């Protein structure tokens, strides 16, 4: 049956991608198809940037909508260039020490397959960087944020990545399982976000004088829903592409990914039900993303019932984790720390717990714990130092005057919804009258 499918698939693909026919004559057809699959997957991962931008912007107030979009847009640009320049070398260069790569910096001429992996991995690096933007929304200096994204994609993320995904990495050698990056991408982004919000402090009025959290609803829940769905769609490339080959298990991986996302949304809403709270759209969306984050580590090595369990617990963690963050007096605008950080930890542990053919192996669980702890320690220390230094030099936090006007005006001189701002204190036609801060 498989052979018949292959016999049908190859001619069809060759027909569809006729310019490749000539290449296929001289190269291995499988290599071409692998390349195609990984590139398509990379493009899907790129689409996650749109998902993040919509979701984070929708969860922010209207006066900061442009700023959030701009941060998402520009961290992709900064992150991509820096990852090519430094990050890829640190992550995938020759790793003798087990801690970082030492070559492949600023590659300009390379093997075809290296172009492909560099492109794919660049999208991953940009994803790790953009996780922070939602957490720190509405009160962060724009330049300071981009400097943070630079440090994350050029240094913090690739070094940890080299421990796991580089053949010479010390966690890789221990047998740490993180197929597509529950820890490498998501927890790293989540912990960087945690360090950033500790340095930044909460938005004005986020907590009452007696330290109770106050809800600051986002301006566009439709964006949140569409952003969540785009992320979900992009995740098929994120997890499916991590095979780095057009292998036959992609269907299993994508189905696992999808079911975990669905279970995550239900898990989050179940917690609201238990707590007798309304079923919030934001929680449903965040729950599905947490489910997707959780399954990212073990999507290629878990059976479906465990996948569903992993996703559902991930979703529940996104709600409970957010409550913990609030109780700690921290302000995470989109819930990035619980969705990416906490759910990433759970997913990585679940990949060890529910490993097909080797369930609940204590050694594997220990390795997973070591990997998770290493990520937390490495990222928290380096990201905290980085954001603290930025705060002391450039200034991480904008002034209260910026918060009053909104960062769209103070950082970009624009208003997200000029036609609808007549009810606001700052209208589009009055922008030029405002004194520069």
């Amino acid at each position, binding site marked *: 049956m498989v052979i018949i499918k292959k016999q049908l698939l190859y001619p069809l693909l060759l027909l569809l991608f006729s310019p490749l026919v000539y290449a296929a004559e001289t190269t291995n057809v499988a290599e071409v198809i692998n390349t195609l699959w990984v590139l398509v997957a990379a493009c899907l991962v790129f689409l996650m940037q749109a998902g993040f931008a919509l979701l984070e912007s929708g969860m922010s107030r209207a006066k900061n909508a442009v700023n959030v979009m701009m941060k998402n847009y520009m961290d992709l640009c900064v992150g991509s260039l820096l990852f090519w320049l430094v990050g890829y070398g640190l992550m995938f260069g020759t790793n003798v020490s087990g801690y970082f790569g030492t070559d492949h910096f600023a590659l300009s001429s390379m093997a075809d397959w290296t172009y492909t992996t560099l492109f794919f991995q660049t999208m991953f690096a940009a994803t790790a960087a953009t996780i922070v933007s939602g957490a720190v929304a509405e009160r962060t200096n724009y330049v300071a944020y981009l400097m943070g994204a630079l440090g994350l994609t050029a240094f913090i993320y690739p070094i940890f990545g080299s421990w796991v995904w580089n053949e010479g990495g010390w966690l890789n050698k221990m047998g740490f399982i993180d197929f597509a990056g529950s820890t490498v991408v998501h927890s790293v982004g989540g912990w960087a976000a945690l360090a950033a919000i500790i340095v930044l402090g909460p938005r004005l*009025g986020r907590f009452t004088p007696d330290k109770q959290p106050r809800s*600051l609803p986002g301006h566009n829940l439709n964006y949140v829903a569409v952003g969540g769905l785009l992320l979900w769609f992009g995740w098929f490339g994120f997890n499916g592409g991590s095979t780095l080959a057009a292998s036959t298990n992609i269907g299993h991986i994508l189905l696992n990914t999808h079911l975990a996302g669905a279970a995550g949304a239900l898990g989050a809403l179940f917690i609201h039900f238990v707590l007798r709270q309304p079923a919030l759209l934001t929680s449903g969306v965040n729950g599905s993303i947490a489910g997707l984050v959780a399954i990212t580590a073990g999507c290629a090595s878990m059976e479906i019932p465990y996948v569903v369990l992993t996703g559902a617990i991930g979703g529940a963690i996104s709600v409970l984790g957010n409550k913990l963050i609030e109780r700690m007096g921290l302000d995470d605008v989109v819930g990035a720390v619980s969705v990416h950080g906490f759910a990433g930890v759970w997913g990585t542990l679940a990949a060890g717990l529910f490993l097909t053919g080797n369930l609940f192996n204590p050694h594997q669980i220990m390795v997973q714990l070591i990997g998770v702890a290493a990520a937390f320690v490495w990222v928290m220390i380096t990201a905290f130092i980085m954001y603290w230094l930025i705060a002391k030099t450039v200034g991480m936090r904008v002034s*209260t005057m910026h918060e*009053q006007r909104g960062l769209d005006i103070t950082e970009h001189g624009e208003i997200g919804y000029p036609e609808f701002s007549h009810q606001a*204190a*700052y209208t589009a036609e009055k922008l030029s009258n405002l004194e520069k801060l």
Partner: protein
Amino acid sequence: MDSVYTRRAVFTAMRPFLEDADLLTAMMIWQEKYANKSTYAFTQFLSECCRTTELKRNRPSILNAIFGSLELPEQDLLPDPLNHDTGRFDTLTAHEVQYATANIVFVQFLAALLGNLSDDLALKVKAYLMKHVGAKMKLNTQQTFALKTWAHNNSAELNAAFDSKQKQAMINIIYIAICEYIGPVQADQLLAKAVQETEPLAKKHQVDLHDYL
């Protein structure tokens, strides 16, 4: 009673008691709020204008002077301080006119911003302003006194000149206080509402409210 005659009578009566800038502010308050009211409103008008200790002490004398002026023949009154061509009071220097009008608009803006809060909350916000204003900007003695009078006596005027940066800082502190006490969403709404409520007055006096924001 003829409104021009009454205005001239009020102006004539108050002239010996008030400094130029304060007199102009008083006349603007008169024009804004009391020009069309009956003579019974004089007491209220004076309680709004006379906030310093000295003026408070002189309030009965000023009231007597006003009633006295209203008995005077037209030729004994000072000329009308309102320039009918420009619609502005120009008996004083241009700078003083600008200062007084800007102050009236600013105080009106503050009143609009705080007017939508409960009395208790407004007091808390004012206390927050007084507590934090020193850290944000340097105030001279006159400014501090004027601000205290405004905050504690619910005064309708600020008898001191504040530049736009100082006004901006004051509004920002009030905004922070409202964020802390009732939340940033409502703070934004109240700020927008205050702008809308004060805009007509600001336009009339050619003051740009965005200088305060």
